[in-house]
């Protein structure tokens, strides 16, 4: 069992009691909800005649079904309108704050929590969404839950859970030019597998992680779940505190900041913490990474050949063969040159300000390939506004990108933004499952925002470092 890690400390601080089934009952510091997974939970509460226990600790947004073009009400899609109205009814009846599109604060749930300073170190954070792991970037203990658990949290502000093991993943060295957080996490999942994290919480550490900005740290923790780990975290440090200082939670409240900082410091994993497992990844060796298949663990570096299923571990062969058939890729080839129809720059993995800035630098002075539909979907209204203040929208639009409203969009195709037929997409999102982007025959290749930008320009998957205009210095 792990000892003196951030996970142990935060768990202990929130431990209410041990339940008769052996699970621990944990207090939940922040509960985030969205329109897809919460309505049934409110329904269950109504059936049992139970009120929301602490509405002030729950915060709502709409992200999955919101259109990213015309957001006027009623929404043109009846089902989407019904979901949104239902959420509005539920939050109104229980006194929960909702950031709807008229607020200027709406966005993907895992973008708005951190940007408003709701997400803080040492908290327990849950949401009916598996990418809640994102919030671990701040040293919070954050995990996705199902709808019955949302009901529990609304009713009690607590959750029943079993403690997991802790694996420390140490990324050493320094990332190369145009190699970023997304490449790191894709490489980690490739190394440890999509089920490698089952039963574990991941602690990401090492120089390469510490050097990342908060956006990069969020990209890493976001995809913990793709590696099978329900939660992932990074110990808070000066980078974390700098981000927090600028959010409205602490901007103008320096006393509160100073009062909480000792707590944040106290939850960091001890130097002599005990881990259940430690893995080291060589950050210097990571290159821009892309997926070749239909799970986020089917990853290659851009210059590496796609593996031959026959040479993989026996239990991976069938999945790999089926994936290669679906994606229409051949072993031995690289992914460079794979033609795309859509370039999607968005999602809770990679649609924050610094993601957009990095991609904008790649597209400056370039044009999107004529055969490609390229779109930028900012992660939140605030990201969008901030990007517009510095002219990123104009730079993307000049290159031929669509500049859209905030939401989940083509990450999962629950609104009108979907792949059609066998279209292939270069995507900055987190899942390449068959059918994920709205078309059962669609093909998704996951990569970093910079790589999406490069693919948009050339019309095919391209090592961003080889673009003549891109300085590798």
């Amino acid at each position: 069992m792990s000892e003196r890690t951030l996970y142990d400390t935060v768990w202990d601080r929130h431990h209410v009691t041990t339940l008769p089934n052996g699970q621990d009952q944990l207090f939940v510091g922040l509960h985030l909800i969205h329109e897809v997974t919460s309505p049934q939970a409110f329904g269950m509460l109504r059936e049992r005649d139970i009120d929301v226990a602490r509405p002030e600790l729950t915060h709502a947004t709409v992200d999955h079904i919101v259109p990213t073009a015309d957001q006027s009400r009623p929404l043109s899609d009846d089902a989407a309108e019904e979901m949104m109205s239902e959420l509005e009814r539920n939050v109104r009846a229980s006194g929960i704050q909702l950031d709807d599109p008229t607020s200027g604060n709406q966005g993907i749930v895992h973008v708005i929590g951190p940007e408003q300073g709701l997400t803080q170190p040492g908290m327990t954070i849950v949401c009916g969404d598996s990418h809640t792991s994102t919030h671990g970037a701040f040293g919070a203990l954050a995990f996705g839950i199902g709808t019955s658990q949302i009901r529990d949290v609304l009713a009690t502000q607590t959750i029943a859970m079993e403690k997991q093991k802790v694996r420390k993943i140490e990324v050493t060295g320094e990332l190369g030019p145009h190699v970023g957080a997304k490449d790191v996490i894709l490489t980690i999942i490739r190394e440890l597998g999509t089920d490698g994290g089952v039963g574990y919480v991941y602690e990401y550490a090492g120089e390469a992680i510490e050097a990342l900005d908060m956006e990069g740290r969020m990209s890493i923790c976001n995809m913990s779940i793709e590696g099978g780990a329900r939660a992932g975290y990074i110990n808070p440090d000066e980078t974390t505190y700098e981000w927090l200082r600028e959010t409205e939670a602490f901007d103008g409240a320096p006393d509160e900041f100073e009062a909480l900082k000792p707590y944040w410091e106290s939850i960091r994993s001890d130097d002599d913490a005990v881990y259940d497992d430690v893995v080291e990844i060589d950050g210097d060796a990571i290159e821009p990474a892309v997926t070749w298949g239909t799970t986020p663990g089917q990853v290659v570096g851009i210059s590496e050949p796609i593996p031959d299923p026959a040479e993989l571990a026996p239990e991976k062969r069938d999945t790999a063969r089926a994936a290669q058939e679906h994606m229409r890729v051949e072993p031995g080839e690289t992914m460079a040159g794979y033609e795309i129809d859509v370039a999607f720059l968005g999602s809770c993995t990679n649609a924050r300000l610094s993601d957009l800035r990095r991609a904008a630098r790649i597209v400056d002075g370039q044009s999107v390939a004529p055969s490609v539909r390229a779109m930028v979907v900012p992660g939140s209204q605030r990201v969008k506004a901030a990007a517009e203040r510095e002219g990123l929208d104009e730079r993307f639009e000049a290159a031929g990108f669509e500049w859209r409203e905030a939401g989940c969009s083509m990450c999962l195709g629950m609104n009108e933004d979907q792949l059609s037929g066998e279209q292939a997409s270069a995507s900055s999102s987190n899942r390449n499952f068959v059918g994920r982007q709205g078309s059962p025959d669609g093909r998704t290749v996951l990569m970093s925002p910079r790589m999406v930008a490069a693919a948009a320009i050339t019309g095919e998957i391209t090592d961003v470092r080889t673009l003549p205009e891109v300085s590798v210095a």
Partner: protein
Amino acid sequence: MSDGVPSVERVSGTGIYVRGNDIDTDQIIPARFMKVVTFDGLGEFAFFDQRFEDDDTETDHPFNDGRFQDASVLVVNGNFGCGSSREHAPQALLRWGIDAVVGESFAEIFAGNCLALGIPTVTADQASITALQKRIDDSPDTTITVDVAAETVSYGDETIDAAVDAAQRTALVDGIWDTTALMRSNEAAIEETAAELPYL
């Protein structure tokens, strides 16, 4: 204490299998069927994109197979239910008729969501799973008993060792898998814990 929650000591019924590792929740229930505010009626969309071609013709997916339509024990391979936290996935399976899932391994949130619905997720080794899947295919009428309390899965003359997570086992067998009432009764302890948190 159990608030009318039934105990789930064992589940018996005929079987159905879905072969393959890393079957994700997007396959179990595609996102476009989640534009609903209740879980009613999700059963017919279980594995929808695997069951129908673009022109709506049926594939040979087991969920379409007439021999398995009354099955209640689903037998799967590794990392089943990976991907999203959508409880729509186990809800769709439950409403299709599944009462227990036996597999090589499960994604955690999926297993937790199943538990919240009283559906056991028990694991067995690869060889046993493969043999069980073959048996279901060869004789679909075989009754399979998932014994949560004894941690076994038996069919015909065979009994295989199965593993059930300890907390899941207690929760199912003692009928305390619906945690709301259980946790609500600890109000004083909840208050105490909250009062000690510096950030509240």
